[in-house]
């Protein structure tokens, strides 16, 4: 019954692989073109997806994954699709760690609770945070710098026609919803960024830290938590969570001047639960690197007006074109700039577009295949 929906794209995928005669592992693990990594199209159990990543930092700080299939270790447990976007800061360690352990933790809690729920996702976030903080503690004497590394964390989960969005940090997911009246697609932003540049976030921080008048500081026209960091929630950033890491041997430039008793940042995600409707067509997940160059409307318009194949790559390109224009150069010239130096032009950008094909959702019991792909395969 599911086959008609599956077949064409599966075949297409196979043909492409043969045509291009790609490197080891074929299209299954994506392709690399300079600083760009992409997986033009693939199948998850509720439809298709497209993924692309561009590196700007000398060490890739963005990490991402898509997992589709069983969401627990139980045979009769929940099935679905999991998307994770992890935009690291201060280094790549935390985002890599989360890329390895968050989904495992989610499966563990889903097995314990025998279901997917907002609570299960929250538990997975907090457990991953705990694991990372214990890693920091363990490495404290040899690698104190690990205490200054953190990551934003955006997760989307589709299971039995329900969409869960959990976010800690400033990545964003936008839903493309068909609009019959204008014959187009309307963007619906499903996440709110935890960024001190947004007033509600500053208000939230001030109410959480009423004794600290310096909890948010405007510096160089940018609002920062304690004048240090723009995001108010993250995994990692141990020196802003526990006083025990806000001291030597961590270098003074990575520390908060005054001691604190309450965590400054939090790892608790904001969670949205949404029942998917027939009009809900696709989800665009991306790190803030994309959204600083493209608006929600521009992004959904691109997805709506071009073929699915390679759509994530197209979005990345559209973002880079804007970035090049802002820096008064051509897109073709931007491509010549090495990683590291690239950071002056744009941030690491990760885009995952997940198409929601209703015919598949209704028969979501199909456990045909398991997909597990990590963005940016072999990037340093």
């Amino acid at each position, binding site marked *: 019954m599911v086959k008609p929906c599956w077949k064409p794209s599966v075949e297409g995928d196979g043909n492409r692989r043969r045509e291009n005669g790609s490197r080891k592992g074929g299209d299954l693990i994506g392709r690399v073109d300079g600083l760009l990594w992409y997986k033009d199209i693939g199948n998850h159990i509720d439809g298709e997806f497209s993924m692309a990543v561009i590196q700007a930092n000398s060490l890739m700080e963005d990490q991402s994954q898509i997992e589709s299939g069983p969401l627990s270790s139980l045979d009769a447990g929940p099935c679905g699709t999991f998307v994770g976007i992890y935009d690291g800061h201060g280094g790549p360690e935390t985002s890599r760690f989360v890329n390895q352990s968050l989904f495992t933790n989610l499966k563990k809690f889903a097995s314990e609770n025998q279901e997917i729920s907002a609570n299960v996702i929250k538990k997975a976030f907090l457990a991953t945070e705990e694991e990372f903080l214990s890693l920091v503690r363990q490495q404290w004497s040899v690698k104190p710098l690990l205490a200054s590394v953190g990551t934003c964390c955006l997760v989307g989960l589709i299971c039995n026609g329900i969409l869960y969005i959990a976010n800690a940090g400033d990545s964003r997911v936008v839903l493309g919803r068909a609009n019959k009246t204008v014959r187009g697609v309307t963007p619906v932003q499903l996440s709110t960024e935890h960024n001190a540049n947004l007033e509600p976030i500053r208000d939230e921080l001030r109410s959480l830290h009423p004794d600290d008048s310096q909890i948010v500081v405007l510096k*160089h026209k*940018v609002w920062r938590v304690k004048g240090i960091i723009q995001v108010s929630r993250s995994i990692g950033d141990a020196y802003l969570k526990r006083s025990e890491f806000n001291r030597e041997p961590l270098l003074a430039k990575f520390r908060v001047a005054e001691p604190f008793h309450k965590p400054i940042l939090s790892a608790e995600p904001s969670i949205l639960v949404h029942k998917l409707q027939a009009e809900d067509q696709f989800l665009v997940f991306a790190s803030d690197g994309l959204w*600083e160059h493209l608006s929600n409307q521009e992004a959904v318009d691109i997805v709506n007006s071009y073929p699915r194949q390679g759509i994530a790559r197209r979005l990345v390109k559209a973002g880079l074109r804007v970035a090049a224009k*802002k*820096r*008064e*150069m*051509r897109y*073709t*010239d*931007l491509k*010549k*700039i*090495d990683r590291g*130096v690239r*950071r*002056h*032009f744009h*941030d690491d950008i990760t885009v995952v577009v997940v198409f929601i094909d209703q015919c598949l959702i209704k028969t979501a019991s199909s456990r045909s295949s398991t997909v597990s792909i990590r963005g940016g395969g072999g990037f340093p």
Partner: protein
Amino acid sequence: MVRKRIRGFLLKHRVTTLFRRLFRRNCSQSAYSRLDPPRCNRVEPFSKLASWTRCLRTKAKEILSKNYNNSCRGFIRVGQEPFIEKPAPVPKGHMAVYVGQKDGGDFQRIFVPVAFFNHPLFGDLLKESEKEYGFNYPGGITIPCRISEFERIQTRIKSGQSTRKLR
């Protein structure tokens, strides 16, 4: 660039021939009453037209020499012009950077070959930029550096020196 140069020549020739023709007509005093005849008769039309032509010729030369500079020196200096109104288009393979010091008045808009950006000497300049402005600021790449210093570094990169004896 090449196309522009050709265009410049064409324009110049066209203008010159046009004016010559006009002058000839004026001289022969044909029935061109519509072309401001009283003035033609009173003022020496030849000298006036000739000076216009000369003016056009020098202007054309100026434009050409800019292009010439650009291809040879790797950048054009247009800092003196108020770029806010109409910034010169960035030539292919180049990008506009803004060089200057915060307290030292205006920033100059300079075209730099994109290849320079991957050079370690230029990397040092970019590090200064990062320290001063971070990564996320609007507009072109801004480099906090004296123009003379910047030009010296450019010359060095061009000559292929990579010895790190800066400042």
